């Protein structure tokens, strides 16, 4: 009998990851993808029972969750002042006295996510920080405006200072199985982004099956997506654990075959600190610690931060907290 052992050469932490350049569309790979819904649901259902973080570990993990939040406002009634308030919260997501009590400093959210018209305001409000501004784009949320306008919208947002562009894919291409067209669309969007990173929103709630989610994930990564993201937050079903499992397994496969790491962003419906911990453990267990950094993992969320703040105050004081004790964002 021979014995295999894991190579455990100490690796220096990789500070910045090479961008996923994409690859030629490999339809054999795309078509061979399987996703067994029942099995995926079982894994998702048992995960919260298998993983648990307590006390200081929980506090640290919740801080990590904050650092991965794309603090978001995507409302028709957004104004410049509203966005400035959000950006202020992004700079100082947790009360200073609480951070002191935890021994944490310099904690910010991962990014601020707004519509194109608010990009300039946000960029201005975040001057002097490393917090990037992300813009939803390409006819968000439905992605049904004229194609050349969708592409042009990306250029406008990049010009306005957005460092990250959250594009929406054309769901009809997935539902029609037109993988080549999806690939071409994603390629065009990626090229239009230039140096800005591109997150591909799959709108998983509208793709019909987990198999489609897996296939669309792969095609977008092949076409050069830096991140794949579940949803716009406007669909009736947004981020779920089963969908996340499918997408991050696709990320793992892509990484193992190409060597490139693609990030993951669940968005919509994650509003509880406890849920955030489950997502972090899902990333840690399925993909590894490297995917717990904000350049590889983001929460698209608007109300999650508030719940985490309350949990952190509870951790610091031992008393359950109230929402009004934390600054509005």
């Amino acid at each position, binding site marked *: *009998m*021979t*014995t*295999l*052992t*894991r190579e*455990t050469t100490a690796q220096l932490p990789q500070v910045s990851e090479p961008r996923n350049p994409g690859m030629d569309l490999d339809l054999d790979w795309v078509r061979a993808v*399987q*996703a*067994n*819904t*029942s*099995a*995926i*649901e*079982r*894994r998702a259902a*048992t995960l919260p*029972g*298998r*993983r*648990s*973080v*307590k*006390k*200081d*570990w929980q*506090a*640290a*993990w919740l*801080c*990590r969750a904050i650092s991965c939040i794309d603090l978001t406002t995507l409302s028709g009634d957004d104004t410049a002042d509203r966005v400035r308030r959000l950006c202020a919260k992004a700079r100082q997501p947790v009360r200073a006295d609480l951070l002191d009590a*935890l*021994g*944490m400093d310099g904690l910010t959210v991962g990014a601020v996510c707004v519509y194109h018209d608010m990009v300039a305001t946000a960029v201005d409000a975040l001057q002097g920080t490393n917090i990037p501004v992300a813009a939803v784009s390409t006819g968000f949320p439905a992605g049904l405006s004229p194609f050349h306008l969708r592409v042009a919208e990306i250029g406008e947002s990049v010009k306005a200072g957005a460092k990250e562009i959250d594009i929406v894919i054309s769901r009809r291409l997935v539902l029609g199985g037109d993988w080549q067209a999806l690939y071409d669309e994603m390629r065009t969007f990626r090229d239009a982004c230039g140096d800005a990173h591109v997150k591909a929103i799959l709108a998983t709630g509208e793709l019909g*099956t*987990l*198999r489609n989610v897996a296939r669309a994930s792969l095609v977008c990564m092949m076409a050069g997506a830096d991140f794949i993201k579940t949803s716009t937050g406007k669909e009736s079903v947004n981020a779920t654990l089963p969908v996340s499992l499918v997408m991050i*397994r696709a990320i*793992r496969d892509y990484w*193992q075959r190409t060597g490139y790491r693609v990030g993951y962003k669940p968005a919509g419906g994650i509003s509880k600190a406890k849920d955030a911990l489950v997502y*972090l*453990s899902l990333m*840690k*267990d399925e993909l590894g*610690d490297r995917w*717990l950094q904000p350049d590889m993992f983001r929460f698209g969320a608007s109300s999650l931060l508030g719940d985490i703040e309350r949990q952190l105050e509870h951790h610091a004081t031992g008393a359950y907290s109230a929402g009004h004790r934390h600054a509005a964002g």
Partner: protein
Amino acid sequence: MTVKQIFGSMEYGPAPESAAEALAWLVDQGDRFGHFINGAFTTPGDGFESRNPATGDVLATLSQATQADVDAAVTAARRAQPRWEKLGGPGRARYLYALARLLQKHSRLFAVLETLDNGKPIRESRDIDVPLAQRHFYYHAGMAQLMETELPDRQAMGVCGQIIPWNFPLLMLAWKIAPALAMGNTVVLKPAEYTSLTALLFADICMQAGLPKGVVNIVTGDGTVGEMIVAAEVDKIAFTGSTAVGRRIRKATAGSGKALTLELGGKSPYIVFDDADLDSAVEGLVDAIWFNQGQVCCAGSRLLVQEDIADRFYTKLRQRMDGLRIGDPLDKCIDVGAVVDPVQLRSITRMVEANTAGTMYQTPGPLPETGCFYPPTLITGMEPSDPLMQDEIFGPVLVSTTFRTPSEAVSLANNTRYGLAATVWTENVNLALDIAPKLVAGVVWVNATNLFDAAAGFGGVRESGFGREGGWEGLSAYTKPTGKPRAIKQIEPLHGSGAPTDPIDRTSKLYVGGKQARPDGGYSRPVWGKSGALLGHASLANRKDVRNAVEAAQSATGWAKTTGHLRAQILYYIGENLSARAGEFAHRIDAMMGGRKGAAEVEAAIQHCFTYAAWADKFDGQAHGVPIRGVALAMKEPVGNIGVLCADEAPLLGLVAAMAPAIAMGNRVVLVGSEPYPLAAADFYQILETSDVPAGVVNILTGSHAELAKPLATHMNVNAVWSFSSTDLSGIIEAGSVTNLKRTWVNNGKTHDWTPTNARVCLDAATEVKNIWIPYGE
């Protein structure tokens, strides 16, 4: 570590479940336990320590039951049984419901105590063992409620001795006690000596529920106590544990008339086809072999991967193994806890160290410094001939080989003495539903593994034992047909000295593989009629004729795959041909036995052909309502090759009444005809020859039941032996059956009710229930 450091490292950290309440309960009990007999705990006696395998700490001191303790428990159970049965199903249902509620109310206490005692991760005891145990009591509360209306022909067995293992202490207790109580039995249960604490807590619950005294009795101790229970005046023994001990119990109870069910070991295959969702199949293995440290009788311990994806699959699997967390079972963030005892740890270690084949990979990282821990282990590149591919390890060790085609997967999967469970991963519904029935196992999971529920029977075939636990099919293990069979007297052949009734020599042959065959020994015996006239000679089969007949039966396995409709047609045809020669058969019976009952017996035999022809396409399986999005299909499958020592007192009916249900269900039979009146059996093969019965499906021998019982009972390619002989062979058959743990159905010297209304009893004996779990959803 500071919060800031953890923020950087993102480690999990400790997440301990408190043991305080469970330890307090032990203290309340004085840390010493007696037995639970007749509704109260006895004074603790001499005994042994129960330890926490994760730490080695002593949890409590338990008493080793003496013969007097066991006798007292059995006496209490015996005394309580009639009243408990008479209480009626709805009355018993209320107690079972109360037990379920109390289990639920104290669920955390049960879970923590189980983990302390057994070493399994708290997640498993909390999320799996305890909820399934509750479910079993709820489900069987319902069965008690329905017994009188749904099972009017069944009654309680009486007192059940139950011996359970250490891998799922509370759950196995529930599987044993709930159905027994529901059906009106009382029990004497012995938990495993490593893990008795939750059984004792359950005893506490029984008192809280106000369960009548003596209905549940629990005695603790080692295997010698088990032997005392097996030897005691009980009506039934139910055992879950190792195949070796199961064999000893089979031998010890042989001929005693005690009913027996055995849930034994396994080496269950886990088959991954190349179109499977590989990531999900990898995750399934975590639940298959690293669940409960692999100490699971139905663990998917033999991985069979399709060649073209094997490397990719193994890579994914090893990566998944890296993520398994091993350590303190009370930690809520642990996947693999402690092995139950140092003895078991040594056994696992020794088996793996003795292996020289394949490539081994183990989850990296240090194990806890103290306690019984073994790392999750994968050994790839194994061959079926390697001992670890055949022997049950009962630890977190997965062995693997590859296959090329579906049929090769099936043949590798079935290349084992066991037959408990099997798992199939494929996205192709045609493939899954083709493979599942071909796997020799009592349970098959499609795209899932280790799913359990009270509504679906669990149990094995081959050397994994017999009997089912759970579902409607599980109730037959705790009931028997109503009615009181009478004692049977041995019927001696008649003697005479008269001249032959026909000057032409009449020597009947044997019927093997569709052909008439002379007996291997070359002997025959004269058969005289009641009047003393010589009716002819009957061949005397010997063990080699048994061998040939079984060989012929084995070559006719295709019969199992025929449709019920076809088998019905053939049975009707047999009936029709028998009817055409009814007078001749009646005359033969009358001549052999005297009297004039031949015509009625022939008529009854024809009725049996028609009855089982009717049943051939109607003895349906069930779709169990298990709590998943999916179904558990309880499929009725033929038992296989069945040897029958036919009733002596009804030379034609006894033969036909055993043959018809057996072949109706797709079995092949070796029938040994009535010993004193063998000529009807011999005449009958002429009927078979004209009735389109394929060669080998029915084989007929004549001769000495006593001589032929043993070779049939010990033959390892015979799956069941039935005896309705007037010779007392029950002990010989049951003792002989240990070779391959074949099913036995013996008369224990009592008559059998051959009326067609009793058909279900025969049909049940002629079938095994296989539960195929099919979760679905896209």
